[in-house]
């Protein structure tokens, strides 16, 4: 599971109002090489929940020096964009859990696949 995906995922347990962002507990993390496309990264930034991204990267110990806010005029700042690229697409959680921040319900991640299926009584 890449952190870009994590940024989109939310808890949908019945009754939960604030299911975003999911907490990450990882037991295995991998860093892959993915082709860097500056346009992709700079257009993605406005679509992201930045604080959730930084928090997630932090939880995985992969934050490095990613700032708490996107730097001004990031579109032309290749150095910054590369940092974001790395955190969004190259860091992957292979094994671990996602946790609903409100209900505490855990969703396992195995082989990089988060299992978000709910039991019948939770829907």
């Amino acid at each position, binding site marked *: *599971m890449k952190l870009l995906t994590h940024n989109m*995922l939310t808890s949908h347990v019945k009754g939960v109002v604030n299911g975003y962002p999911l907490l990450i507990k990882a037991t295995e993390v991998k860093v892959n090489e993915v082709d860097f496309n500056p346009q*992709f*990264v700079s257009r993605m930034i406005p679509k992201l929940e930045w604080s959730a991204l930084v928090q997630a990267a932090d939880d995985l110990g992969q934050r490095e020096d990613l700032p708490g806010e996107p730097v001004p005029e990031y579109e032309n700042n290749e150095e910054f964009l590369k940092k974001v690229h790395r955190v969004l697409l190259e860091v992957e959680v292979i094994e671990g859990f996602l946790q609903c921040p409100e209900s505490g319900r855990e969703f396992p991640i195995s082989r990089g696949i*988060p299992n978000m299926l709910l039991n019948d009584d939770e829907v």
Partner: protein
Amino acid sequence: MSSQEGGAVESGLNPAAPPASCCAVRDGDVLAVTIGATVPTGFEHTAAEEVKEKIGVDAQIGKDRGRIYFPITTDQLPQVHLLRSVDNLFVVVEEYDHYHFKESKEETLMEMMQLASKLPWTHALEVWKLNGKLKKRKGYRKGGNVTKVKSNSEVADATVDDAEQQKPPQAVSAAESQTEAESAAAMETSTTDSEEAEPAAKLLKFRVTCNRAGDRHSFSSNEAARDFGGAVQEFFQWKADMTKFDIEVLLNIHNEEMVIGIALTEESLHRRNISHFGPTTLRSTLCYGMLRLCKPQASDIILDPMCGTGAIPLEGAIEFNISFYIAGDNNDMAVNRTVNNVCHIQKRMAEKGGASGLPIDTVQWDLCNLPIRTGSVDIVVTDMPFGKRMGSRKKNWDLYPSCLREMARVCTPGTGKAALLTQDKKCFTKAISRMGGLWKRLHTVWVNVGGLHAGVYLLKRTGGVFGQTPEDVYESRGTVKARGDETGDKELS
């Protein structure tokens, strides 16, 4: 064994047979030819677009559906093989727009037989030969044409690769690898002898495949194939073989239009990305066509909420890699197969050197209850259960409205789009008609999927905020799913 012309042109053919065209062609000459391609019916225009984009020429759409034609010079042949919207390729020997078939069967077939010796075979056969050499190289279509840059440089390094043994292809049938090994063996001699000498009289095997459509013909496709094939055999002294052939001659007849061609691809390589099949895996050319219809932009988030083996998002991650793909399914086997397919491609990419990560992720989820933030997805592309091989008609009645709503929820209002493939047109149309507040129908592309008549419905997400459209208000009043109620009540309160 010397040819009557200057160069080693008609190597492998009987030199006694007078060539139909009298211009001498030497290996390395660049020829102008017309290429024909079969594409999924309904996607002729998207295929023509791809040809314009990648080859830079205008394609004609054949009168018989599912075919396009475009002119190239032989140096462009490698790029032609990189086209993602074509199933099969052939080189045109001759085309007749208005062929006047005779009244009687005997006369018509006789004329066809005489045609065999008069057709301009030379250039087409040159292209076939050149194509055979391309196929031998590692990374040719079968092995993977994932990174375009790499493929081109491999073609340039021809002499190095020729000597190597071709790696067995990873996808599909054994028959393919057999034929390939044979033509590789045939070609190997000619290239190592610096392309001048003739190969040691290898007898070429061929077959004729005839496709005929129209109600005014006096003959059947079998008869045409048989008689035309007989004349071809007579002319070239090739050996007829229905299964282990080197050359496949195509005779395509559609009313008054007749096209004779030579095949450049064996068995359609539909499922080039998929090594782990599922029960309903969609062919890659169809996946490509559907994605192209949506015109993915840089940083678009593209969702396939019922991905099966991941064919659609994987094709996207490879071919439209400026976007990001999230593939999901509720089924254990499906998500595992998807991940296996992704890993397989990434491994191939890694073997060629360079970055091997693809912009795709897989999640296990319930598509009627997606764990995705509202309004965060740009495009939804998926193959919806048809109710025949997967699911059931009755299930579709409940499933379609629920998943259409959920897809509307996650799609960005105003700009979001969806391309949904389904055969259950009745159920789909009904479900969509009740969602005018969320989805607007754009156009529909009619396609043929495994013999079933299906539609790719292109939808645009309206600007309507989810939970506040009239249908939501109506539906939240005590019907359907519990979650639907919850959302409705919450929005109203």
